[in-house]
């Protein structure tokens, strides 16, 4: 189960819509002590409806912010503009370093991969863990306190 407040879900959906026709991507950071979540939009340097690549420099700045402000990386999110909120084969491949080396540990084993789909009128948001051997495990999202 992934606890994600409604305003955080809404912020990711808003971002996905703002970046149409391209995929949007970003990170949710969470305070280690207060468990406060913040959504951080990251530039999709691929600027494409079919793929995303997070700006590496913006990512690095967010990692430095995590260190200095005592935050954890709670989730990595991106949008699918015309497909379901489910990790694609590319999403799974790219969760490993080097890509596709699914026998390695995934890059972010404890971080949720959140997918925002704009395929239908009503946006769909779902959360997953991507595990060793490329196994996808869905975590139901809970928004109530």
């Amino acid at each position, binding site marked *: 189960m992934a606890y994600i407040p409604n305003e955080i879900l809404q912020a990711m959906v808003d971002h996905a819509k703002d970046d149409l026709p391209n*995929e949007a991507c970003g990170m949710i950071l969470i305070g280690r002590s207060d468990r406060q979540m913040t959504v951080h939009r990251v530039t999709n340097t691929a600027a494409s409806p079919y793929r995303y690549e997070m700006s590496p420099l913006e*990512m690095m700045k967010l990692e430095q912010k995590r260190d200095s402000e005592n935050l954890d990386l709670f989730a990595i999110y991106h949008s699918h503009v015309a497909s379901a909120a489910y990790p694609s084969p590319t999403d799974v491949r790219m969760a490993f370093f080097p890509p596709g080396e699914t026998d390695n540990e995934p890059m972010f084993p404890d971080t949720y991969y959140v997918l925002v789909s704009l395929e239908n009128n009503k946006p769909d948001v779902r959360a997953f863990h991507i595990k060793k051997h490329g196994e996808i495990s869905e975590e139901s999202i809970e928004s109530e306190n």
Partner: protein
Amino acid sequence: MTVNVTSVIEKLVGGQRSFESVGDSVKSLIENINEAYPGFSDQILEEGGELRRFVNIYLNDEDIRYLDGLNTELTDDDTVSILPALAGGE
């Protein structure tokens, strides 16, 4: 010079996010890091010696792919960031 790394690349250099190293080009910097952390360059470079597609190296704020690639010259005052791509698709 200062070298910044993140996430998986951090694990290749003993879990530190920032460290000091030397080199007069990106290539020699990678060789020097590899001396200290064997196996490092195998993860960063292709077998032919080119930078792997999913690894990004920045000299200060500039992608070395838009400079002189691995031959980009460095000085001690530079900051080099070696960062994995975080990417995916539909």
